[in-house]
């Protein structure tokens, strides 16, 4: 079958890193990712199903992988070669449409008894992502045994499968996975004053989730590009500003806030960093209130940030990785209520994968948000 496969190749990885630094998405042309014919993955055991992807999104973490920018932290929890793609709406052999919840937890791995995190429902924090009867892999799309969405076939455990309601379009369904990230992040704090940095897919889904699932007193979004700004407003941000205007906007929105040097004296209770860069984290520290929380949705990698204000103002920084099963279920409502299918800006056939990745890497500037592969009319399934 036709699949995009990411292989372990240090020279190509190095080339991707260089190309990705020069131009986002540049790693697609020189890196370890290639379109090839492979055997479909075997069903690993009972409870596993074959899924034929219909749409598969391109995520920021995929782009970081393609461009060789991912942290080495992931090395023990991925297995090569793997087929990327973890934002998947597909079809079972019986024709049932499903969204794949990609985290490969104890249930999928056949680990008994399940780890403490899975037992408590925090499956996104599973302690066994490198163990069990599967090759290591934190998610479908990073595991050699399961395949991934950027192909014509993958396998998924029944615990990962969520049926798509009748009437929900594929475009809506493919947004469930990123929307679930937004749901998870939005429910992490009990705050009411929010700032969201970044208005790509994650940022917009977080805005939608905050607006839908919480009762914000004020919700401020920092967005770079005109289309992002418009969507941020439509999805519920009260105030939308350029990134460099965030501190001014927060100062105005939170009564009594003054400025001392580059630091606001007060700020919003919670900042959602949906970029994960050095500058976005530094900016989050500038605008978060003393005692407030910075939630990292964007994958940060290695950054260098002055944490003095974090120490002095007793700010918490916490990660927000994927979602629990509850979050995932809630995301089905969110994608419909917030009409998140409007974020799907471009669909590509697998053969045009390089263009697709370059488009996704440059989405903001090109007025796009979510780019996905359209596999509904692909041939070549073995």
């Amino acid at each position: 079958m036709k699949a995009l496969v990411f292989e372990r190749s240090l020279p190509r990885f190095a080339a991707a890193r260089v190309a990705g630094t020069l131009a986002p998405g540049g790693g697609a042309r020189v890196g370890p990712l290639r379109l090839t014919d492979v055997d479909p993955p075997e069903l690993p055991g009972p409870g596993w199903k074959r899924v034929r992807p219909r749409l598969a999104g391109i995520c920021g973490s995929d782009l970081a992988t393609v461009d060789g920018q991912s942290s080495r932290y992931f090395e023990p929890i991925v297995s090569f070669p793997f087929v990327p793609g973890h934002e998947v709406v597909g079809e079972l052999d019986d024709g049932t449409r499903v969204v794949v919840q990609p985290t490969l937890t104890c249930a999928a791995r056949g680990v008994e008894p399940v780890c403490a995190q899975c037992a408590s429902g925090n499956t996104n924090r599973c302690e066994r992502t490198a163990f069990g009867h599967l090759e290591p892999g934190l998610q479908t799309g990073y595991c050699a045994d399961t395949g991934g969405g950027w192909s014509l076939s993958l396998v998924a455990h029944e615990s990962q499968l969520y049926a798509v309601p009748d009437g929900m379009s594929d475009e809506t369904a493919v947004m469930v996975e990123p929307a679930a990230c937004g749901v998870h992040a939005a429910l992490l704090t009990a705050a009411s004053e929010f700032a969201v940095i970044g208005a790509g897919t994650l940022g917009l889904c977080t805005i939608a989730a905050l607006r839908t699932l919480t009762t914000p007193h004020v919700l401020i979004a920092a967005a770079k590009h005109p289309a992002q700004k418009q969507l941020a407003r439509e999805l519920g941000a009260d105030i939308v500003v350029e990134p460099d205007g965030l501190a001014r906007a927060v100062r105005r929105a939170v009564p009594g806030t003054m400025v001392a040097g580059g630091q606001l004296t007060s700020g919003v209770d919670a900042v959602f960093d949906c970029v994960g860069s050095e500058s976005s984290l530094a900016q989050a520290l500038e605008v978060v209130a003393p005692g407030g929380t910075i939630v990292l949705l964007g994958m940060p990698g290695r950054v260098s940030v002055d944490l003095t204000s974090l120490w002095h103002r007793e700010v918490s920084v916490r990660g927000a990785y994927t979602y629990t099963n509850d979050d995932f279920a809630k995301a089905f409502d969110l994608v419909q209520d917030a009409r998140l299918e409007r974020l799907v800006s471009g669909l590509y056939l697998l053969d045009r994968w390089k263009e697709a990745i370059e488009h996704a890497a440059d989405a903001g500037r090109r007025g796009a948000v979510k780019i996905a592969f359209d596999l509904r009319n692909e041939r070549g399934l073995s």
Partner: protein
Amino acid sequence: MPRPGFVLDVDRSTPPTLFWHGEGFRLERLPTGSRVIYPPEPLDALNDPDEAIRRALLEPLDSEPLPALLKPGMKLTIAFDDVSLPLPPMRQPDNRQRVIEAVLDMAAAAGVDDVQLIAALALHRRMTESELRHALGDRIYDAFEPHGLLTQHDAEDPAGMLHLGTTDEGEDVEINKRAAESDLLVYVNINLVAMDGGHKSVATGLASYKSLRHHHNVRTMQHSRSFMDQHRSELHSSNWRMGRHLKAAGVKIFQIETTLNTNTFPDQFAFLQKREWEWKARDRASFLAVSKSLGRTPPRLARRIFHSINAPHEMTSVQAGEVEAVHARTTENVYRQQLVEVSGQTDILTMGLPYICPYNVNSVMNPILVMCTGLGYFFNLYRNNPLVRPGGVLILSHPTPWEFDPVFHPSYIDFFEQVLAETTDPLEIEAKYEESFATDPWYIHLYRTGHAYHGVHPFYMWYWGAHALDHLGGVIIVGGDPAAVRRLGFKPASTMRDALEMATDVVGRDPSITHLHCPPLLMADVSV
């Protein structure tokens, strides 16, 4: 004998007309049949301004001579207009220096020891040391400032303000406490335009936001037609009520007003004060040299060059005494210099806006100030009827950069980026946003301790244009930053020709066109 103002009918032989364009100029060939309104030539200056000042103090209008009002042991406060006047700043000695020195001489002769000077800022930014020295001279500055006797009005100092009740119409009258409690308040003014002076000097210059909001609002500005014409200006009616209330409350004011001629630019810019068809070879050479060099100069440097200009303004009159009597005489003198009779309104009014307005001395004219200068000040330079007909189009020429001075205009940035992004309707802006900006503690802090205009000031700038917004069918800015122009709610045009073409969509084909050739300042007396 200086020539009066003049309305030129453009014909085929008329040379291109000079338009101000921020820190530069444009030569525009206006269509045949257009009119150009030129200001009167500068009036002759007083031969001996110091003697004229002395005489005004000794022979005041409807008041005892100043020396008779000065007694040992009394508390004397001298308030003076701030950096917003005159424009450009005048060559030294400034009128304020001349007048205050004369007042101080008389106070010293009378044995008055308790004397304080206050810059009447209202909600403007605090003046810098060099600006104070320029306005007052080193002698006064060095004698008063080190001892804390030269202060700048602080409308947000709760201990420094005194509420004196309300007018018959319920307007709060709250002014500077030191001024209110003095045995005599001497106000030293420079009347650059007819709007300045009179009761507005104290009732606005030394007031608080609580007091100012009664006349600095959209309704008042929409009912001031124009605010340059005291008798048809609700802005002035409110100030006059407050001024009379102050008098009734026992605040004794001795008003000293001065007027200037329109000798606005130094020799190297002499062409700016001449009518184009009268340019000599030297004027043409100066224009070319200045234009060419400005074209090669980075905008910031060009701005610095322009803001270093000191105007050769000269004093044309000085009058002192009772506020209303003084101001009536002052207004006559302003009109004598600036009034130009114009017959009939126009479909399209064009203006070239210069680099400076009252609120950007030594800084950039940001887009909000462009709006205020064009639709506020210049549009209102009329008596009886606006120059442009109702539903007509105003075409401004100005680069309108999306640029702000973060020290002087911090609240302007938020106003532009947050408020105008949502609406440009003055009434909606006033209702929804004014109070939060006016009471924002950060803006108050910057106003009190730095050199920032008060948080509410950009709102006033927007209200200043409210009458024009109400009156006009459209506004076009030639040569401006398109994004900034659109944020203002106006239309951008690359050339004057394009702008005139665009205007016909609003006013129809073959429109009448009038150009306000200003500055130097003029005021159109428009009959219909």
